[in-house]
């Protein structure tokens, strides 16, 4: 009896196993159609739904399937490495510049002959090695100090102000900015703000505005001043000679802020943007992607016509001509290990997106990209005030816009060390020397293993 019972159980187990097996194999066969489709691993979670609409439209117009997958915030590299090893590897993915390319170069197909590349306005902005293009930038972004003109105008109208300026147009270097900011901070109650600058978010993971974006400026000047060839190995070591200029603006941020500099370690970017949106501060350093965020905060008091950009002045000689930091860290790549047919299908999809009438409409209206392709007419630009500002600064030839050299930063780990040192400096537990040493030494050690 016992034996029989055992046999029945065993048979059932075996049956359920085979049943499971069948299940998976049947779903496999339906997956087959999918695995032959182009897969796109999207970098920006905030536009995931827009991409869903795009691929739907694409399949309506052309009958071809593209599957969009999105990596959660800050997990793109993780998701990409995990997915690359599977049979559902992305056909289209993106890298964040030369450093990202060196990690993924075994997977980056030559895009020189793709139609999209031929329509790229500025060929030098692509990721190119030995005359071949491996990554195509798909958007241009710009950042600087965003300010609320309503509040600055209120300041310039103050009777007891200590500076002689009458508008932000006159503020064109660090010295003037410092004078205005410090006087605004002194008059913060009259202006109805908690501080001039939004809190300098230094919580690990939320410190990219400082260890990446702001750090771009001293590194740009250092490379420029020493005529460094950005594609050479000379970028593997820096002296951080413009570090003191970095300190200028960083001090200004943390000393004239809505919060005390000692508690910056728990502040996140979203809070800074909320402070700006609610009118608790007059200025915040960020880029044109921030408009949707500012506009989306309930109780937002910042109107579209009052949101303006100021270049990030640090005190470098001749900075009166300096513009915004404009560039990209978003390069589209096609997986060279994918099927030939899939690779060309991927290129077709990308070209459709950036050249067809319906595709372009999505790019401008839903994705909000300033697409760097000559298929876009001047009128086909996103309709948000910060993007307009970026385009104005780009077209102003009297200004010298700073490219995004932070794509040359050796690794994420370097940025984290930098951010941690900045936090300790802000809290007062380490001095500025420590920041400088950290930047120089970790840049060097993190570069050692780069190819």
């Amino acid at each position: 009896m016992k034996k029989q019972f055992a046999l029945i159980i065993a048979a059932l187990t075996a049956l359920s196993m085979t049943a499971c097996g069948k299940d998976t194999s049947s779903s496999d066969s339906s997956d087959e159609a999918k695995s032959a489709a182009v897969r796109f691993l999207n970098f920006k979670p905030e536009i995931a739904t827009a991409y869903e609409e795009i691929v739907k439209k694409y399949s309506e117009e052309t009958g071809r399937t593209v599957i969009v997958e999105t990596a959660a915030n800050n997990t793109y590299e993780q998701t990409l490495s995990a997915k690359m090893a599977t049979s559902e590897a992305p056909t289209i993915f993106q890298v964040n510049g030369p450093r990202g390319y060196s990690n993924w170069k075994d997977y980056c197909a030559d895009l020189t002959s793709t139609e999209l590349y031929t329509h790229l306005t500025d060929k030098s902005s692509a990721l190119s090695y030995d005359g071949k293009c491996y990554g195509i930038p798909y958007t241009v972004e710009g950042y600087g100090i965003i300010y609320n003109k309503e509040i600055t105008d209120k300041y310039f109208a103050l009777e007891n102000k200590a500076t002689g300026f009458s508008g932000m147009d006159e503020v064109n270097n660090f010295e003037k900015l410092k004078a205005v900011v410090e006087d605004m901070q002194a008059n913060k109650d009259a202006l109805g703000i908690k501080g001039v600058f939004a809190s300098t978010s230094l919580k690990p993971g939320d410190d990219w505005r400082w260890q990446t974006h702001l750090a771009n400026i001293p590194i740009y000047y250092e490379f420029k001043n020493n005529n460094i060839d950005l594609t050479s190995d000379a970028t593997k070591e820096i002296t951080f000679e413009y570090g003191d200029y970095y300190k200028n603006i960083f001090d200004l941020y943390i000393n004239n802020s809505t919060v005390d500099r000692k508690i910056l370690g728990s502040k996140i970017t979203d809070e800074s943007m909320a402070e700006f949106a609610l009118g608790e501060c007059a200025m915040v350093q960020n880029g044109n992607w921030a408009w949707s965020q500012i506009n989306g905060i309930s109780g937002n008091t910042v109107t579209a016509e009052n949101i303006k950009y100021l270049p990030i002045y640090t005190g470098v000689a001749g900075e009166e001509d300096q513009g915004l930091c404009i560039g990209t860290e978003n390069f589209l790549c096609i997986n060279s290990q994918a099927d030939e047919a899939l690779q060309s299908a991927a290129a077709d999809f990308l070209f459709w997106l950036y050249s067809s009438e319906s595709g372009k409409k999505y790019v401008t209206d839903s994705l909000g990209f300033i697409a760097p392709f000559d298929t876009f007419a001047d009128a086909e630009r996103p309709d948000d005030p910060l993007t307009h500002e970026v385009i104005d600064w780009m077209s102003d030839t009297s200004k010298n816009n700073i490219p995004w050299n932070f794509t040359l930063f050796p690794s994420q780990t370097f940025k984290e060390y930098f951010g941690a040192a900045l936090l300790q400096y802000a809290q007062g537990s380490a001095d500025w020397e420590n920041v400088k040493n950290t930047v120089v030494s970790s840049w060097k050690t993190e570069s050692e293993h780069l190819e």
Partner: protein
Amino acid sequence: MKKYFPLFVLPTLLAFTAAFIIPFIMGIYLSFNKFTTVENAKWVGFDNYVRAFSNGDFLNALWFTALFTAVSVITVNVFAFLIALALTKALRGTNIFRTIFFMPNLIGGIVLGYIWNLIINGVLSYFGVDISYSAKYGFWGLVILTNWQLIGYMMVIYIAGLQNIPKELGEAAQIDGANPRQALRHVTIPMLMPSITICTFLTLTNSFKLFDQNLALTAGAPARKTSMLALDIYNTFYGRAGWQGVGQAKAVIFFIIVALIAFAQLKFTGSKEVEN
């Protein structure tokens, strides 16, 4: 009964091989390789192991983890034991208290981390600082969090152990003239040794492998001084291009350390157990 072996063991064995043994061997193999995805690995020998120690991060994390484990194993077990003792006395509402003490264990680590991050920062803000100000705050924050989370669970194990001790033993000790402290020291604790073995094992390995609480509470701030081993491995693997193999090598070292310590501890506390 041998002929039934394939029927009963094979399915499990296959699943175990596919889900554990193969990934494990692949993991060890990959720790000797340079790779971006598991498919394009290139053999580099012991290079990854050398690089794992090339900066102080790993040793710092090891030291921090060891210290944290030592403190939390002791505090968790002492508090869990004391609470279990109190809640096995015939008091009103012990069931409610058991449930309440157990509840933190049902909350996920990330959520717990954020909750305690808010609480601790809220308290520290009265002193004008936050948890990232000093590694000490992060350390004690983690200890408190782990205690809060694990005590309830260990308490349940201790309560079960205490209820398993035959009443006669306590009565006999009482008749022989033992005072409550002597009864605790010479009767209850020896009889409870199996529970102590399992509880120390669980707290030891859990504290050593702590990851999500660490990530959510401090994320290593300030300056990676509060990153524990698991977080350091994660950062190595994903934070730098070309360092995936090094992360893998660290993970292998981590595995060996955890296995050794857990094994030694089981041997040690196991030897103190008495027959019922």
